[in-house]
């Protein structure tokens, strides 16, 4: 009752509702733009949150995430081009429904299933995050160092088939985190006499460089993808249809929760997995691929559940399992908020605000989704050159506002070039982001542990939590190495003629 009252007070006394609505609108528009993923949409607004109240900033970012997951399904259904990776599974039956003249129905099912998925994910988020984070109350420097290493070990599942490249990206990220004044000895490192580098390179700059600037560079000169001028009216499902959608939505919710909890799982895996399961359990599997309503409901419920569920490991332990969660972590760090149990103790209002704001955004999604459709269609139909120009100015302006420094713009442009090259040579981004975020945690806690023990590494063995994390990290890495080896063998077998 007390919590409910606090939530209501937050709704009335703070600008949570406008932040949630603005975030939702921006997220839907960004998600609807083909090629602009949820993480890019979030990283574009990240610099703007710098001057905001922490709670409002986090609600804004979380709402963008929620909106982008729905927005991605709009071009997936209308032009067979997923706006976000996680909307790829929606293309199969969504576009088929559009071809049958049922675009409005498909968008309505996508919207409704997205709301169900978001609500389910939110319940999981509220229910699981705090109990999990309480474990972290017993953490010592060794535990934090081992947790950071465990976080870095997930690069194995994020490396897109090459563990070595993921490792290289993570090491480069950690190297970037060493730039600036060393917090323990006060010595400046890798600043080359440049005062602008004394405070280091903030994770937000790395995220904007890799997710937004490199994407602009990559897409330079690409053709416009227009949704067409047809007007589409969203039709929400009726009661009978809602009943039919319960099963695929439930499958989507469960899959989305499991994938959201797993580092590197992501919305696209959850969406395809739930599509497959929904088909397997359906009474009408023959409709799948031919415009099945269940084929739209399951993946949309799944990728929206992932949006909330992926925040559970982030808020509990500070481990972002996806690009979007990493950007949200950037938002927390900008305001000096460290995930974990202290976040729940010292900044309970921020956490409560996040839950309340996410709930507002989820419920408002139905109305905003319907109202914003014409605006969205108009914006997405603008010529790509104009969109690219405005996004470029938005990115550069946003970065300038962080420190009021033109030097930072140079860093971000250089980072964008690095991101472009990484993409071209098949190096994943998320390990680099994890390296920048987790690098200082690993380094500072390792050095504190060594100070405590006088340089004796066995102090790690005296801490059962650290031992647990280290064993898990080794198991995770071994499993990933085995999987990579197995895939390589399978590829070789395929190539060899029978």
């Amino acid at each position, binding site marked *: 009752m007390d919590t409910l009252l606090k939530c209501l007070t937050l709704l009335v006394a703070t600008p949570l509702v406008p932040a949630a609505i603005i975030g939702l609108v921006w997220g839907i528009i960004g998600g609807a733009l083909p*090629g602009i993923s949820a993480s890019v949409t979030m990283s574009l607004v990240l610099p703007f949150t710098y*001057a905001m109240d922490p709670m409002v900033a986090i609600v804004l970012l979380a709402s963008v995430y929620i909106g982008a997951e729905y927005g991605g399904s709009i071009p997936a259904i209308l032009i067979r081009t997923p706006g976000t990776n996680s909307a790829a599974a929606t293309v199969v039956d969504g576009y088929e429904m559009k071809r049958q003249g049922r675009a409005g129905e498909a968008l309505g099912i996508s919207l409704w299933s997205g709301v169900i998925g978001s609500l389910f994910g939110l319940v999981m988020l509220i229910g699981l995050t705090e109990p999990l984070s309480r474990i972290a109350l017993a953490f010592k420097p060794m535990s934090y160092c081992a947790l950071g290493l465990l976080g870095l070990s997930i690069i194995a599942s994020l490396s*897109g088939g*090459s563990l*070595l*490249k993921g*490792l*290289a990206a993570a*090491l*480069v990220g*950690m*190297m970037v985190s*060493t730039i600036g004044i*060393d917090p*323990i*000895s*006060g*010595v*400046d*490192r*890798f600043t080359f006499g440049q005062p602008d580098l004394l405070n280091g390179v903030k994770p937000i700059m790395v995220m904007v460089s890799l997710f937004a*600037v490199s994407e*602009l*560079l*990559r*897409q*330079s*000169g*690409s053709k416009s993808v227009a949704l067409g001028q047809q007007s589409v009216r969203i039709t929400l499902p009726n009661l009978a249809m809602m009943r039919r959608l319960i099963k695929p939505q439930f499958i989507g919710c469960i899959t989305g929760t499991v994938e959201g909890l797993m580092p590197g799982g992501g919305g696209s895996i959850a969406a395809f997995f739930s599509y497959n399961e929904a088909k397997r359990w359906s009474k009408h599997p023959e409709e799948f691929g031919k415009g099945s309503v269940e084929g739209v409901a399951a993946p949309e419920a799944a990728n929206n559940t992932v949006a909330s569920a992926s925040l559970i490991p982030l808020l509990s332990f500070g481990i972002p399992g996806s690009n979007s969660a990493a950007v949200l972590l950037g938002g927390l760090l900008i305001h000096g908020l460290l995930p974990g149990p202290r976040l729940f103790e010292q900044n309970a209002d921020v956490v409560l605000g996040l839950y309340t704001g996410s709930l507002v955004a989820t419920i408002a999604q139905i109305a905003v989704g319907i109202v914003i459709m014409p605006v969205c269609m108009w914006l997405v139909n603008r*010529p790509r*050159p*104009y969109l*690219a*120009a*405005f996004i*470029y*100015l*938005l990115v*550069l*302006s946003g970065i*300038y*506002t962080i420190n009021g420094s*033109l030097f930072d*713009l*140079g860093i971000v*442009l250089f980072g*964008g*070039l690095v991101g*472009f090259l990484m*993409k*071209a*040579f*098949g190096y994943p981004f998320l390990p680099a982001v994890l390296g920048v975020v987790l690098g200082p945690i690993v*380094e500072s806690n*390792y*050095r504190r542990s*060594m*100070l405590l023990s006088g*340089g004796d590494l066995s102090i790690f063995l005296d801490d059962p939590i650290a031992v647990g994390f280290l064993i898990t990290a080794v198991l995770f890495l071994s499993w990933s190495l085995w999987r990579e080896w197995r895939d390589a063998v399978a590829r070789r077998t395929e*190539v060899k003629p029978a």
Partner: protein
Amino acid sequence: MHKDIQSGLVVAAVGFLYLWGLRGISETTLSDEVGPTGIPYLLGIGLALTGLLIAARGALVARKAQPAVAAAPAPDDDEEADAPAWRAMSFLGLGVLFIGAAWLAGYVAAGIVLLAATATFEGIRPSARLAVLAVVGAVGFWIVFVKLLGIDLPHGVLFGG
């Protein structure tokens, strides 16, 4: 040369450069057991070794794949083709132009230049409409940042900034 050989060698070079950069870090009396160079040293070694391993693996793959090259399709995982390097570099150059213009003439002028130049570079023909859009866009951004959000933007040395 195989892509992994090229990228692996570059990664290794970055690792060695980073190690070389460690020479400029001084030890102080406040230094702890590990010191400010302890972890960076491991990172540098780790990156250099990883780069060499990537290059070695690339060389191995290239040697094995050689006979099949003629028959095999181009190895490209991306579903979309990336912009050519010259195009990406030019696009980046527009950002550098923005930084210079902002330093010299302030945010609004730089914004106009960036919007007009980027749209033109991406295929829009220069026209009065484009000029109006660039001015409206840059002034609009300035109003949002400076007037609505209260964030200062570059004034430009020409205008006493």
